[in-house]
């Protein structure tokens, strides 16, 4: 893996099983230089996602400053998804207690510091609501040139999940998502169009477990827990929403992407949080996002499983 120059990134998420698996992929791939990890309010409240962020980074051996994100969406009330992730936000296997603490800066301060100090532009991978990233853009417009791109999990061109028209991460903070999509920073959007096709099947859980390292065992249990909810609503496997945003940066070849203009509906009776994609060019506006529409599921699963081997290589 050393033939690749590492991609400097900030991980921003609300772990959450699929956030945690996305970060497991990020660390296990060996392809990223993780400069900071920030928590955000989303799947569960900010105290829990911060605690989970510390536990996951401890488990994975991510040695980067960690900061707590904004406690609530920019203007909207807090909305959580405990039905999917359990009360702790990361129910299932026992995890190690945090071996580190948050760094003492807010997420926005930490992101700004990292961007300022980085010699090259940094990629941000938001896998929760866009609150922290929007707050960063509002507070530090001067740092925009230091953001190379934003590879996010959120939205859906064809449909939603939390409402018929809106996906959870965007629905939680549509105003923040609007700020991010209108920022002019290159965006890769991993929405439901692809993430619900990026299924990890029960047989894949076993492939991961069979790797027999301490992380792979926990990932297999996360997948089993995460799959309980999804199986109950008819899924054949566990949808790897957040890992898509990570995978898109290192294995774009497994995806089908289409550039288009994406706008966020912040109003409406049914459509608040809808990501409206201009597939036919009706708006006359230039594309602002690479929207991922499809995935080679088998290749995706293979690469995800492969990344878990990292944790069995010992002395890392």
């Amino acid at each position, binding site marked *: 893996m050393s033939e690749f120059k590492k991609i400097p990134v900030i991980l921003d998420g609300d772990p959450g099983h699929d956030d945690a698996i996305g970060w497991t992929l990020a660390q296990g791939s060996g392809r990223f230089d993780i400069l900071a990890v920030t928590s955000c309010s989303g799947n569960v409240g900010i105290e829990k996602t911060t605690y989970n962020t510390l536990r996951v980074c401890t488990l994975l051996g991510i040695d980067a400053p960690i900061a707590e994100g904004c406690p609530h969406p920019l203007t909207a009330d807090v909305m959580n998804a405990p039905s999917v992730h359990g009360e702790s936000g990361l129910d299932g296997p026992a995890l190690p207690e945090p071996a580190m603490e948050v760094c003492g800066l807010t997420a926005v301060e930490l992101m700004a510091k990292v961007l300022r100090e980085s010699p090259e532009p940094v990629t941000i991978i938001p896998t929760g609501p866009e609150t922290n990233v929007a707050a960063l853009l509002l507070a530090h417009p001067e740092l925009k040139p230091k953001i190379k791109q934003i590879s996010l999990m959120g939205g859906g*061109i*064809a*449909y*939603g*999940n*939390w*409402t*018929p*028209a809106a996906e959870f991460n965007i629905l939680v903070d549509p105003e923040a998502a609007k700020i991010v999509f209108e920022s002019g920073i290159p965006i890769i959007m991993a929405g439901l169009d692809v993430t619900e096709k990026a299924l990890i099947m029960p047989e894949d859980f076993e492939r991961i477990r069979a790797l027999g390292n301490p992380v792979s065992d926990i990932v297999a249990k996360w997948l089993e827990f995460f799959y309980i909810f999804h199986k109950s*609503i008819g899924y054949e496997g566990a949808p790897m929403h957040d890992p898509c945003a990570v995978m898109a940066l290192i294995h774009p070849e497994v995806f089908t992407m289409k550039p288009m*203009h994406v*706008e966020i*509906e*912040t*109003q*409406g*009776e*049914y*459509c*608040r949080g*809808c990501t*409206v*994609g*201009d*597939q*036919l060019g*009706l*708006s006359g506006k230039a594309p602002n996002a690479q929207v991922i529409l499809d995935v080679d599921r088998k290749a995706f699963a293979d690469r995800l499983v492969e990344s878990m081997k990292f944790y069995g290589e010992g002395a890392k």
Partner: protein
Amino acid sequence: MNKYPVWLDCDVGVDDAIAIMALHALEETDLLAISTVSGNVPLSSTFSNAHRMNGLMKTNYPVYKGADRPLIVQPQYAYTFHGKNGLGDVELPLPEDAKMLDTPAWDALYDCAKQHPGELRLIAIGPLTNVAIALTKYPELKTLLHTILIMGGAAVGGNVTPAAEFNIYADPDAAQIVFKSGVPIVMCGLDVTMQAMFRPEDWDELAQTGTEAGKFTKACVQKAWAFCKSIGLPGVAMHDACPVMYLAHPELFRAEEAGVYVETRGSITRGKTVTDLYSDKQFETKNAMVVLGVDRDKFIGVLKDCIRKI
């Protein structure tokens, strides 16, 4: 053969004209009357165009005049596709014996529905203004209609804005009244209608039959074809013929039951037909069959047979 009694509400319109010919010729349907609405072109044109179709087909279907503007939003028209006169700028004569009926569309529709309780199929292929007014003025109407088959909306995408299709966008409030009415709805949106492509070889073949209807068919789609060709489409989508054909030949289509409601308040999604077809979150009520696919060749085959008979 038991024919389905049909009321057609339309905004003639190139593909409306073709849908009218299909309804007239299909053995499975019994067209009782036509009402017209402001939509593709203003009401005065859609009303006279329905009469002109009577002239072309040598028929005497009663034609009623409906709303001259949407319930709440400002009217807008689709001249690029339908031409200034709504029939692709083909001049069809207004028949001398055309009966200019005074009864408003909604009153006439209600009277007709009372004569066919539980049986009348309402096919609505323009903005849903007339239908919404009828349902609002006569709450009983919803129990009298068998089905409302519409051309409008899209489960995915749009053609006026990225989120909205023309007929729904033109009067979203009316559409929401219809979707909330409780009458079973068949929605033929862009998902299926963009598959119902009428191609140059199809209209050439019809023109070569030498009939007035055949020659008119080719002539009236030319303006729309110029537009469709310019955006890379292989033909002209027969949007409005879809619900007509679905009624007569449902076996040619693929449809799924869903909850469908119309966004009337969005800033960029106004007029979007929000369906729960693919979403984890479902609406409480399944109020529509959303038509998603069609066997294009068989569809166009039946359509051509219809026009040949006229």
